């Protein structure tokens, strides 16, 4: 407590320098929080997505990426085989879908993902929480139901016409809020229309609901064993896969923010070192009066720690604010809040800031505590 009071006095005595150092750490910590918040946001968004997505397994042709758009390569025999073995595999229900992507695939506003659903199946079968915003829910017999996000992004309204190919066009008959970012960017249409546009009778994907008491992972394995050439992707598997990708991203983002952190740390070390050199006589007086080495060491180390801690706390606050700004943008652009500052991220950032202060403070503290009284006071 006593030492802290002395530290605060000293920092106050040099307000501009203390403030600039504080700002340096603030920016470094804020940038780290913001960088890492993307990973946390992705994790949160992903698990939310997965619970909103109805079917637990999607069966696609081998070679399709976990989150990739599948090609229509599943023949009708795949569907009939699955149907025939549904009971023994642990499948409650299943339905096929044909998917077609039009547009660049890069810019969400000009990319259109047509999700062809078979008759009797509506967006609600894909996303159980789906609600009609305008018009109707079912695209059949010959309409298109647009996900809310997609409608806003590409300014699609009821009555407008969507063109799947040169010959095929569908009027928009409904806007749906599927409650999930992915499904909200789909355009639901009758399956036969997609098949017609692609000139095929194949399916892109077969969606599977697993019976109660069965594990999706195991059912997916059994499907792959039964039918060669297919990939049965369970949502839990997809989450694991995504988690791995996010973690790699985390490491890269942390690496980038580490540069800012190192600069921040050097800033603290420099400030504290300068302050040590300026106060050599002061430390000399303290030592002459009877201060032990440990006292001076603590004094200097606390100075660095206090700078790092307060800079870190303000940086976390700034990071949270920044993350909210990012989310306003990404929610608008892709329908997902991509950035999240979780308690563990806050904890981690504060830990990094404190470590930074420690490391930056140790050398100046050592120098200060080893000052010789006679040299410091010019008594040689």
């Amino acid at each position: 407590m006593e030492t802290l009071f002395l530290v605060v006095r000293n920092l106050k005595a040099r307000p501009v320098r203390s403030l600039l150092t504080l700002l340096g750490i603030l920016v470094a910590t804020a940038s780290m929080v913001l960088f890492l918040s993307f990973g946390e946001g992705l994790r949160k968004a992903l698990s939310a997505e997965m619970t909103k997505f109805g079917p637990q397994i999607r069966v696609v042709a081998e070679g399709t990426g976990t989150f990739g758009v599948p090609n229509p390569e599943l023949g009708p025999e795949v569907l009939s085989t699955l149907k025939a073995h549904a009971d023994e595999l642990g499948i409650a229900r299943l339905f096929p879908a044909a998917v077609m992507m039009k547009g660049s695939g890069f810019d969400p506003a000009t990319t259109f993902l047509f999700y062809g659903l078979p008759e009797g199946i509506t967006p609600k079968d894909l996303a159980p929480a789906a609600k009609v915003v305008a018009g109707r829910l079912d695209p059949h017999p010959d309409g298109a139901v647009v996900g809310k996000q997609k409608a806003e992004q590409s300014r699609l309204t009821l009555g407008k016409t969507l063109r799947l190919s040169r010959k095929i066009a569908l009027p928009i008959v409904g806007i749906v809020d599927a409650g999930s970012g992915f499904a909200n960017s789909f355009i639901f249409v009758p399956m036969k229309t997609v098949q017609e546009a692609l000139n095929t009778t194949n399916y892109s994907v077969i969606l599977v609901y697993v019976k109660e008491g069965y594990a999706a992972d195991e059912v997916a394995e059994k499907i792959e064993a039964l039918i060669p050439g297919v990939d049965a992707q369970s949502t839990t598997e997809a989450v694991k896969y995504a988690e791995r990708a996010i973690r790699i991203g985390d490491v890269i983002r942390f690496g980038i923010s580490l540069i800012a952190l190192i600069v921040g740390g050097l800033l603290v070390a420099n400030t504290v070192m300068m302050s040590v050199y300026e106060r050599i006589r002061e430390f000399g007086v303290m030592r002459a009066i009877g201060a032990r080495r440990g006292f001076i060491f603590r004094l200097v180390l606390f100075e660095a720690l206090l700078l790092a801690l307060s800079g870190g706390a303000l940086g976390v606050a700034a990071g949270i604010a920044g993350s909210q700004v990012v989310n306003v943008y990404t929610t608008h652009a892709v329908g997902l809040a991509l950035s999240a500052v979780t308690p563990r991220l806050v904890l981690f950032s504060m830990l990094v800031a404190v470590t930074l202060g420690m490391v930056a403070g140790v050398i100046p503290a050592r120098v200060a505590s080893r000052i010789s009284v006679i040299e410091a006071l010019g008594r040689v």
Partner: protein
Amino acid sequence: MKKPILQAKNLTKRYRQGEAWIEALKGFSYDFPPGVTAVVGPSGSGKTTLLNLLAGFDTPTEGEVYLAGNPLHALGEDDRAGVRLLHAGFVFQSWNLLPTLTALENVAFPMLLKGVPAKERTERARALLAEVGLSHREDHFPRQLSGGEQQRVAIARALALDPLVLFADEPTGNLDSAAGSRVLELLVRQAQGERRVVLVTHDPEVAARAERILRLKDGALIEIQERP
């Protein structure tokens, strides 16, 4: 046998300067009696070296030095600091006070180091500042005080833990004569009971206030002058 309060035995300090060895202090022996003892001599005579050794700022090349019964020559730096804190007070020529602390906080600082509770510290610091006539300056920072006032705060601080020995190194060196004589008056007044006041100076008028004068020349004690 009584513990020596401030005693030097054959105290010697040699420095290496390039190829040559310089003997800054040569076999100084003296047992300081209570009261004011002035140490005088021209510059380079070894006054500062002697004070460095007596206060435990530095270690002797040879010889022994005792402060409040503690063998400073045999102690490490931190232990010497501990002995200083409890038994010695210091008033230097300049740069005495901690610039970021108020007068009151400066006086309380040694008590803070010792771990005296805050309330007690403040009370005693107030009383000490009153004693040196600076009650109205409690909340002033050193830069807001005159040189004489700063020295008086330093004296108050030196007395904070009621030390057995008070070291003053050219305490009036930077002051005009009025402020200087007031500071000197205060210092001399502190030589009560068992307390030793060691006054290092080159000013004969300052030395004249001491009960005895030790004269140094070329690192050797050449004269001990007892005054009536």
